[in-house]
Each structure stands twice: as C-alpha cells, then as structure tokens.
C-alpha cells in the first residue's frame, strides 16, 4: 500500500483505468436501459456544441474539398445529378399497393409492426459527427422530448441516414448506415423481389450481399430499404450499386453501394416518429 501512496500519479492513473473499465463494461451490458446522469450530461454538451455546429459544417466541407482531387469533385457533382435523376425514376418504381401489402404480410409474419403506423417527420440539426475509420456516429439536437427513442429512423432529402442508438433530453446519438455495426435489409428499387443485407464497409461506403444468388444486379441499380427486420420501414433510398460480383464460386453475390447521402455535408436531418 505504501508503494502506491509514494506514487500518487501512477495510483490515480491505475485507479482511473480500473474505474473506466467498470464504466465500459456497464455501458455495454446496460446499454438498453436509460442513464439519467449520462442523459443530463449529454444535454448540456449538446447545448454547448449547438452554436458551433453550423460553422463547423462549413469548415468541414472546405477542408474535405481542399484534400479531394478536382476529378473526384467533378465526379461527385455528376453522381449527385445522376442520383437526382434516378430518384425521379424511382417514383415510377416505388412500391405499389400490392407490394406494400405483401411487405405488411411479411412484417406480420416476422412479428413486427414497422409498416403499420404512419410516420411524422421531425427536423433536427447535426451537432457532432464521429466519422473515424471504424465508427460513424452523429449527434443531433432532438431527443426524447420530441419522441425520439432507440431505433428511431433518421433520413434526409437524399435518403437513409441511420437509426437512433441513444437518446437524452435535447440530443440523440445516431448510428449511420455507413457504420459497420449497422445492418440494413435492402431490395432493388426496380425489382423488389431481389433482397439483400448491407452494412458499412469502413471506408464511407456500403457493402452487402444478395440473398438470392440468381438476382440480376448491375451497376447503377438503386437500392431501397426492404422493411425486413423491423427497424427501417420499406421504400427509403439507401444508395446506388457501383459493383456487383461473386467473390468466389460458392459465395453469395456481393454488392458495393454508394450511399445516397453525402455524410460529410449533413446539416439537417429528419426523424421518422
């Protein structure tokens, strides 16, 4: 014991590490339960971040563009136009009533009710974004007071953004679809019979597999949520296929997907409540 008293800095560091390991374990095992203290602290942090958030988006865009090749920027603009055109086309291919009914039946079979209710949109601002190589988590300025809860779906004008992971008064954490921890059921917009599952590829894009090995998928095909799984309702734009191929003879057809949403430039989002 004397050894520890003689080394106060080491003792503080060791005690902090032990305490933090307990915090990490508790936050993992008890993630489904509300944490009022954490929620209150997050509300204060969000209030402080709010005035800086808009300016930060402006800086983020400028910095990102400064490090991006001219060709890529031009290609990005072309892709945006293409996405916009494809979205117009998608309106024609949107799920018709029969298909919706089929999906509702499927949801019934799976025991979920994601498609039964009507959604209202609640606008929110992005306050913070953790977009490292391993994780993609956004903090938004709408929380439990507006009705947001775990797995509330978040979208913007371009398509699907993600789902709420944690919520507090005045703020929510959203796991983006480009996060590898987020699995999304999808279908082809122009052929709802072909289903698949995708998640983040760790590099700002999405990667997935088609459940039907005979699925006809080609570059440029638009993908929308299938509604299977109960978290994401059917029909929300996810992105566009940029590559579809078998990685080996026995594997399922793998697809690489360009998300419809440009995550680094997100300012406003909407929650489906």
């Amino acid at each position, binding site marked *: 014991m004397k050894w520890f008293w003689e080394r106060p800095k080491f003792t*503080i560091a060791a005690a*902090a590490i032990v305490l933090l390991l307990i915090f990490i374990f508790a936050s993992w095992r008890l993630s489904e339960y509300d944490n009022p203290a954490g929620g209150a602290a997050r509300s204060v942090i969000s209030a402080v971040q709010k005035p800086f958030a808009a300016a930060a988006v402006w800086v*983020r865009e400028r910095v*990102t563009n400064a490090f991006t090749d001219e060709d890529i920027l031009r290609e990005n603009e072309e892709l945006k136009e293409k996405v916009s055109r494809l979205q117009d086309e998608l309106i024609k291919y949107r799920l018709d009533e029969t298909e919706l009914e089929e999906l509702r039946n499927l949801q019934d079979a799976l025991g979920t009710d994601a498609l039964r209710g009507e959604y209202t949109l609640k606008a929110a601002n992005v306050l913070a974004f953790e977009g490292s190589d391993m994780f993609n988590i956004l903090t938004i300025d709408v929380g439990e007071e507006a009705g947001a809860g775990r797995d509330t779906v978040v979208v913007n004008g371009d398509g699907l953004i993600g789902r709420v992971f944690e919520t507090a008064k005045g703020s929510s954490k959203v796991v983006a679809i480009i996060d590898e921890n987020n699995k999304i059921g999808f279908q082809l917009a122009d052929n709802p019979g072909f289903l698949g599952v995708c998640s983040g590829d760790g590099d700002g894009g999405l990667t997935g597999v088609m459940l039907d090995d005979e699925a006809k998928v080609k570059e440029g095909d638009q993908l929308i949520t299938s509604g299977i799984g109960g978290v994401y309702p059917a029909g929300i734009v996810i992105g566009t296929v940029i590559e579809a191929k078998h990685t080996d003879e026995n594997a399922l057809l793998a697809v690489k997907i360009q998300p419809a949403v440009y995550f680094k430039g997100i300012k406003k989002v909407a929650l489906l409540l």
Partner: protein
Amino acid sequence: MRKMRYYKAAILFFIAFLIQTTILGGVSIRGVSPNLLLCLVVVFSFLYDESYGLILGIVFGLLLDLSTQTLFGIQTITFVAAGIPPLIFRRLFNRERVLPDILMALIATPINVFAVWFAYHLTGSPVKIDHAVGALPGLLISHAVIVCILHLLLVRTIIRHKRDRKYLGGTA
C-alpha cells in the same frame, strides 16, 4: 519551466473538444480522422510537471465518450493509457526538444487505435482489425504533425536537463 494555470489548460482542452466533435470527427481525409484531444494529452503530460494531461484527459475524454461513443469510457481509458508513457519518459529526455514529444505521440496513437478496436471487438462489433491497421499510418503522421505544432506553440521557456553542465536543479 513556466507553469500554465489550470483554467488556461482547461480552456485549451475545451476548444480542442469542440473542434474534435464538430469538425475533426467529420473530416476524414483518406479514411483518417485525427484525434486532437489525444495529442493534447500527450503534449501536456510530457511538457508540464502538473498532471494536466491526465486529469483534463479524463474530464474531456468522458465528455467525448458521452458525445460520440457507444461505449462510455473507451476514449477516456486510452487517454489515460496514452498519458502514462510521457509521465515515465519525460525525465529521460530534454523536454525542450520536439522529437521526444513526437515519439510519445507515436506510442500513444497505436494504444488509442488498438484499445478502441479491441474494446468494440470484445463487445461484439464486426469491425475488422484491418481498419484499425489501415488507419494507423495516416494517424501516426497526422498526430506527429499536430503534436509538433502544439509543442512549438506551448514551449516558450528553456527546460534545463540534468546532464546540462550548468544545471542548478529545479526548472528555469
């Protein structure tokens, strides 16, 4: 060495926290998003005799975890771990020089990256170690640059080394 008051250090950490969460978190260049708070913890632990790096690292690490992580405490624990090598090695180096500080950042960066990956891996995340390894070279370079800039901004007075023949004990 000239001392920095706690509130000044806290203001620096607070500004870094805001930049980290609102700007740097979204600026991923070639898949790399530098960790400014980690760099501050390293520089403060190395330069100052007081425990600024550790204590402020714990406080702002917890705020960072609350703000942007799904596991509470994960960034904080890596900040504490990253703050220990500078505490141990600073007696061996001349703190006026920038290279040892950069060396501390090069030690702290893999600790941060692999500890975060390992914790998420243990808790069931599908993120592969390839991503942690892939991000490492870019992070090492960006952290070295940031630490170099911070060091040059914060070192304003001479720190005498024990091997200096004019060393009189204590600090200048």
